[in-house]
């Protein structure tokens, strides 16, 4: 086979076949177009303002490393005027973070960015090793994911930073859309597609500038730019992806690569059907500014700051979510929910019943956006997921001590 030439410059040898449109590009053109597309996402969603201090949730893995590299490049090239900081979470898993934290430290030097590391121990009084000692290995990824979510917010707060960006990519978003579709949970599906999460009450805004970037292209970008990243599976997470939503996404991509962005777009379109949920999308389609969605349920799995949810983990998380919903159903104050949604200026509620979770046949009112009574973090329930999990853990510890 004669080597194909780049469809863009028509001089260099094509090395990349883009999953989104099958375009064959050379290395330099691919890097340029990848960066341009992230720039387009950032400007069309008006993610940043000049002078903004932004923390990059950094795990040393491919997604956050590429995010840091691209943001540094774009910040300089287009004069965003951002003050960029790397923020890393130490879950307290002996040995697991040693290498990845070393990678983040090197990234901090390579990108000339300050680095802040926050540990689960200082935030929650529990390291993940202690959690596993208490509850065993099963289901611990749920804890890790719930704790990680708030950890970035709390770390950002310590640094007095109001905006955290994460490396969630198109595959991550597609996976979440599929999982929520399988659960019949349109409300969560809608929130998961938002590029910006957090609302006026949350002190920290979160966004995902790589939302439309294929994981494949992120890995190729890292490879061709020779970025220094670290990859390992969390030692507590099950290693097989077979039978998981993630595995399904990858198989779909193999058959038809555009499937991933198609699922993301479908998720955004479905989000528009949810009353009061404002989906984000590229401003080229009309929106002025990406609307924020409450982010409390944007729970990642393990192994990174991204949601990785292997098979039996999915079942564990599913159970957890169902239990939370059961509690929520008892606690919810319909009147309050209605007045709150008016206060937040969201569009008039339509009479479309939105089911929440596992095919529950009752129509549930929109979740109340409030704050956790214990820790003060944004939560749709009286007590946030992290505090609920901590309560269980602390009871366990007390029992063990007796």
């Amino acid at each position, binding site marked *: 086979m004669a080597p194909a030439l780049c469809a863009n410059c028509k001089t260099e040898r094509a090395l990349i076949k883009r999953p989104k449109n099958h375009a064959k590009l050379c290395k330099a053109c691919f890097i340029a177009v990848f960066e341009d597309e992230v720039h387009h996402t950032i400007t069309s969603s008006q993610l940043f303002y000049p002078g903004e201090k932004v923390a990059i949730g950094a795990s040393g893995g491919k997604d956050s490393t590429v995010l840091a590299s691209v943001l540094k490049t774009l910040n300089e090239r287009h004069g965003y005027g951002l003050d960029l900081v790397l923020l890393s979470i130490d879950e307290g898993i002996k040995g697991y973070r040693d290498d990845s934290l070393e990678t983040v430290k090197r990234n901090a030097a390579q990108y000339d960015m300050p680095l802040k590391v926050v540990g689960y121990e200082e935030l929650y009084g529990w390291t993940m090793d202690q959690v596993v000692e208490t509850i065993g290995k099963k289901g611990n990824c749920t804890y890790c994911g719930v704790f990680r979510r708030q950890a970035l917010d709390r770390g950002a707060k310590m640094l007095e930073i109001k905006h955290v960006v994460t490396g969630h990519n198109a595959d991550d978003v597609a996976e979440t859309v599929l999982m929520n579709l399988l659960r019949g949970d349109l409300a969560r599906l809608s929130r998961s597609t938002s590029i910006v999460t957090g609302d006026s009450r949350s002190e920290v805004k979160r966004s995902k500038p790589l939302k439309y970037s294929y994981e494949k292209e992120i890995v190729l970008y890292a490879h061709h730019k020779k970025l220094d990243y670290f990859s390992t599976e969390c030692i507590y997470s099950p290693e097989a992806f077979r039978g998981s939503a993630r595995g399904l996404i*990858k198989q779909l991509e193999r058959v038809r690569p555009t499937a991933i962005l198609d699922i993301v777009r479908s998720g955004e379109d479905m989000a528009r059907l949810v009353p009061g949920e404002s989906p984000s999308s590229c401003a080229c389609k009309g929106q002025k500014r990406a609307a924020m969605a409450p982010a409390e349920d944007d729970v990642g799995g393990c192994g990174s700051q991204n949601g*990785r949810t292997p098979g039996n983990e999915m079942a564990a998380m599913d159970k957890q979510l169902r239990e939370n919903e059961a509690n929520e159903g008892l606690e919810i104050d319909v009147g309050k929910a209605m007045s709150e949604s008016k206060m937040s200026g969201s569009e008039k509620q339509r009479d479309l019943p939105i089911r929440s979770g596992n095919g529950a046949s009752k129509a549930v009112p929109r979740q109340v956006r409030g704050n956790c009574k214990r820790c003060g973090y944004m939560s749709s329930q009286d007590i946030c997921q992290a505090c609920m999990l901590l309560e269980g853990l602390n009871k366990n510890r007390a029992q063990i001590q007796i």
Partner: protein
Amino acid sequence: MSAATEAAAIPITVDFSGGLEMLFDNQRRHSVSLPAVDASGKPATIAFLIDHLCRTLMKDPRAELFVLDNHIRPGILVLINDADWELEGEEAYEIQPRDNILFVSTLHGG
């Protein structure tokens, strides 16, 4: 070309990254002497290489992290001399001397 050279092996380098090095002795780069032809006498292809790596080089029993249903596991990228294997004929590509084949997983933490 004599029969002796035909029976010879093709020298190539094989790289693993993105977490796959775990399955291959925690080593990123391997020099491999690949038999020039497979059992049925056909020239060595990527498909043959994958099979060869599983039989001779993999140190980890979890072969399913590399191969599923006799094909490379979805989510693992294959680069042939830095080019996406989709541009080179995928499994049917015939291995040439001094080729560099990179297997990189996209499935590990981000």
